[in-house]
């Protein structure tokens, strides 16, 4: 069959298109970035992610594939869905690859609180240097104030916080954090983007920790207190919150899923911001992180995990956690 360009067949009144085609960019494709990538590409949106090396790109791509395989095994997608999603995701080490994006989400890994903000700021600057004027620049940071990041931009009105909650393919909301600089257009576009990827938006006015992190952090700390006081065991504390309050997951299993190293970062961030003791990292968590018990990803945290990710209760008492 002969092929021609579609352009020659436009009607006279062609295209006063109100709808802009969405293309998304992602900077940082660690575990959270990978989830976000699948979520976005699943909605039919093309996505380019930026990583620091070819090896990291390869690794992220492999992990995305294996995450989708796991979803297929659990009936959530088909092989056809996987092909479509993978065809939309591209990795690059060059920020210039973000040039035609309509939204770029920063989702970098930051291990410690102190060098945290400068790094995210650098990323914001780099993104802005490579995208068009109307591209929205969003941060997935949970305890950083978006206002602080926005000031590094030449066009700070495009800055917005979009906090995805893991496992983001299953959760239904994103916390949208606007600051004094964020424009209405940016908010409007972000809402449209959220709707396209099937998420409801919870609007938040510039608060580090949003809603979710501020409630989750003291709850996990309190669970650690209960454990250290010897009031009850890990599994029973979790079960109480699940069976008693209808939570899908108990505080310890949740801590394991988040990753204790990441949790410390959140806790330090919030403690730093608010100075309230309720956010101060539990010594138990510190001890466990030092011992490498980082949670599910490490195979061990408050629970033990086998290679298939199944969770088992650990024998022993609180004294063996991290000792």
């Amino acid at each position: 069959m002969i092929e021609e360009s579609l352009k020659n067949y436009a009607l006279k009144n062609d295209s006063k298109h109100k709808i802009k085609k969405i293309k998304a960019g992602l900077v940082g494709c660690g575990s959270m970035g990978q989830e976000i990538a699948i979520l976005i590409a699943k909605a039919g949106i093309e996505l380019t992610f930026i990583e620091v090396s070819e090896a990291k790109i390869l690794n992220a791509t492999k992990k995305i594939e294996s995450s989708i395989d796991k979803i297929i095994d659990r009936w959530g997608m088909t092989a056809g869905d996987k092909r479509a999603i993978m065809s939309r995701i591209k990795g690059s080490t060059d920020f210039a690859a973000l040039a035609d994006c309509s939204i770029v989400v920063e989702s970098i890994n930051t291990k410690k609180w102190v060098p945290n903000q400068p790094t995210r700021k650098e990323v914001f600057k780099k993104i802005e240097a490579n995208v068009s004027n109307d591209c929205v620049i969003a941060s997935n940071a949970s305890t950083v104030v978006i206002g602080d990041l926005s000031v590094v931009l030449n066009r700070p009105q495009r800055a917005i916080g979009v906090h995805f909650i893991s496992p983001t393919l299953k959760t239904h909301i994103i916390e949208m954090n606007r600051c004094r600089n964020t424009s209405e257009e940016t908010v409007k576009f972000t809402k449209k983007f959220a709707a396209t990827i099937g998420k409801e938006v919870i609007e938040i006015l510039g608060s580090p920790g949003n809603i979710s992190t501020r409630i989750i952090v003291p709850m996990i700390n309190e669970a650690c207190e209960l454990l250290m006081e010897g009031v009850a065991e890990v599994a029973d504390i979790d079960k109480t919150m699940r069976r008693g309050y209808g939570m899908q997951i108990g505080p310890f299993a949740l801590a394991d899923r988040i990753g204790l190293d990441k949790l410390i970062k959140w806790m330090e961030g919030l403690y730093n911001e608010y100075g309230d003791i309720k956010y101060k990292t539990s010594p138990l968590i510190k001890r466990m992180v030092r011992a490498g018990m980082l949670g599910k990803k490490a195979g061990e945290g408050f629970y033990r995990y086998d290679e298939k990710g199944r969770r088992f209760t650990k024998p022993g008492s609180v004294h063996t956690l991290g000792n």
Partner: protein
Amino acid sequence: MIMKILILNCGSSSIKYQLFDMHNNEVLLAKGIVEKIGLLGSFIKNSRSDGDEVKLVGDIFDHQQGIEYVLGVLTSKKHGSIESLDELAAVGHRVVHGGEAFNGSVYISDEVIKTMEECVDLAPLHNPPNLKGIYAIKELLPDIPQAGVFDTAFHQTMEPSTYMYAIPYSLYKKYGIRKYGFHGTSHRYVSQRAAEILGKDINKLRIISCHLGNGASIAAIQNGKSVDTSMGLTPVEGLMMGTRSGDFDVGALTYIMHKEEIGVEATNTLINKHSGVLGVSGISSDMREVEKAAGEGNERALLALEMYNKRIIKYIGAYIAEMKGLDVLIFTGGIGENADNLRCEVMNNFGFIGMIPDPEKNIGLRGKEAVITTGESSAVAMVIPTNEELVIARDTYAIVKDMVK
């Protein structure tokens, strides 16, 4: 008077279209498909009645732009079929779900659009793109009348005792949960065509029509009216299909959700995309591939085929009982029109009502209208290729013919 009618079938990322000349023997002037709307690699394939074919490649951001290009191609010098858009008399749309609001095809007024918007909840995947097509034409060709033809409308003649589910009545009141049925346009067309071919009055016939394609449904049609059909609120109910489970113990479904620890979305994918012929055979959802594997001795492929046939046979049996007999059995849809073995096996079960298959007529028959039982059969079986687009064009014509210049 010019009576050229454009038929649109808008899906989530595709638009199928056909252009008919209703005053010239309902001839098909052009047809084509817009693919990958809003996605990478979008294109339009257009074929004209004289054999001219072209693939047009370029960005198509939304349905409206897709339709603009379709109109552009149809009026182009090189690949077009009409000289100007003035030749278009009307646009007819296929609409998947009409709920209880529509029991026939309608002229699309603002009020009708509003009612259709209210039906979106019933078919969240299908109705919104159908509506997008309607909005687009309204904007691009504001003076051209539009008609809507609903997949569910033909089955609106079912009795409450047929369409109600045995669940709390309040759920019907609250959400409209009941059997609606689909493929109505196809069942209507083939049943009318069967009466025509046989030279009989459709108002005196008991017909069972099997639409067997990617999706599959059966309808019991008594005196020209649908009295029962296998699909329900959604197209999952009824027959086993390529990737859909069809009828299934709902108790087992909640049990699976519990055991596999899966939520609503994964459960939906499980019964819609991982089940049916594909799920049982583990080979493919494509009947030809599964038949091939069965021929080579693959047991699960064989099992899938046997299950597929048995489900059809059960439904036919039930509908014969409902109508107290059967005059005509029709096979249509991609599988119904082509799978002669399947037709033979199904027919073989109905010797008790005087259905005698004629292998000479059946074996090797693909995609052509024919009677496939012997002359002495008291119940006739037929193959009738479906033509939903033509029905939509005819309905549109009937609705608008007094309205246009």
